[in-house]
């Protein structure tokens, strides 16, 4: 029996960050399986601690980002992901995965629409965490950097006030330090009420080691070789291990 926590990474046609995301999960200690969605069944979530939806362009994201992927997921496993969360499972969505989670209704109501610039933006951004207790962020400093790479990362809500309430109430676990893409409340990442579902536009798997930073002299505040992205996955790993030992 494998002692390490198990991560299941769902791969849709067009998912393309699965390799490096699996590498990051393995680096912090998860056993990771990449599962093409064609093989997804409710029972595949049994024994899994973490479901990950990674970056990419599921089904091309042609209608809108994440829409077809969320419909296909519902078609294949119905509400299994919600049950999984309710039974203590963790769900992480990165970039396209975040877009899919918002479409699935696993996160507070909101949509990720075209960046205010109207462009794809591949750049590094400064982030601020607003939910220090989040199992996904616990080991990260108040401010840190991660790269983004998306055309549709502008988080909007029915009304701007709703987004403001996320910022005040902690659902907006992660915000951009600057206005990067026009997101309401500069929201970069959302968590659900349980705190076990978390989606973010930036790519933690691309900043696993300090050497991944664009500036060769970047040292950060932490000791050692690891970058901010590592600490996100590591926080999550720790939370799952701790939750397991509690139960």
């Amino acid at each position, binding site marked *: 029996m494998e002692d390490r926590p198990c991560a299941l990474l769902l791969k849709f046609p067009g998912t393309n960050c699965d390799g490096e995301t699996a590498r990051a999960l393995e680096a912090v200690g998860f056993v990771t399986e990449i599962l093409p969605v064609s093989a997804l069944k409710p029972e595949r979530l049994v024994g899994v601690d973490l479901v990950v939806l990674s970056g990419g362009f599921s*089904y*091309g994201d*042609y*209608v*809108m980002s994440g*829409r*077809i992927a969320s*419909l*296909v997921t519902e*078609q294949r496993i119905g509400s299994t992901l919600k049950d999984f969360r309710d039974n203590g499972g963790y769900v992480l969505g990165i970039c396209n995965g975040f877009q899919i989670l918002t479409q699935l209704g696993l996160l507070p*109501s*909101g*949509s990720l*629409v*075209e960046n205010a610039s*109207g462009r794809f933006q591949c750049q590094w951004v400064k982030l601020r965490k607003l939910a220090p207790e989040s199992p996904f962020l616990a080991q990260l400093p108040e401010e840190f950097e991660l790269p983004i790479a998306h055309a549709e990362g*502008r988080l*909007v*809500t*029915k009304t701007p006030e709703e987004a403001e309430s996320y910022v005040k109430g902690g659902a907006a676990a992660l915000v951009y330090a600057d206005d990067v893409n026009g997101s309401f409340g500069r929201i970069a990442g959302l968590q659900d009420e349980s705190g076990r579902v978390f989606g973010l536009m930036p790519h933690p798997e691309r900043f696993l080691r300090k050497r991944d930073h664009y500036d060769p002299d970047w040292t950060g505040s932490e000791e050692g070789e690891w970058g901010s992205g590592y600490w996100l996955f590591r926080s999550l790993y720790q939370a799952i291990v701790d939750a397991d030992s509690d139960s």
Partner: protein
Amino acid sequence: MREIYEISDRFIEAGDANGLLYEPLAGGLTYRRTRRYEIEYEGAEAAMEAFVRKTLLDEISQELHSGEEPALEDFSFALDYGMKPGALDLEKEAILSYYRGIPDPGFELKDLRIRQRLYLFGGKSGDSDRFVRDLCNAAIHHWNVLPGHV
């Protein structure tokens, strides 16, 4: 049966139309985009509309308009353009492919035509030639210009 839906974005502000052109026009034109879906179908209308809402519409950031009437008002002209027959329309392919995977859709989707609609505000209706020239390409597109309601 045939139904037309036009989907507009609630949060995307009007943009500077000169950004779409090779050389700027005088007169401070702005533009907004919508997407127009022409659906040929047979079967239950309610099932078809449910499919449209579920597949094509984002309830948070978009609005759905049915019928021929343009979704926006007070425009100088509008340009509809989309893939001509034989040219690959990736969005259409994605929608059809999802539709084919639904076990019991409750209606039969016979045809789907997708058009980008570009509404131009300010400027003159004669300006439409420039937008056609700079945005449309006979190699892949079909298009038509809709006179304004100003």
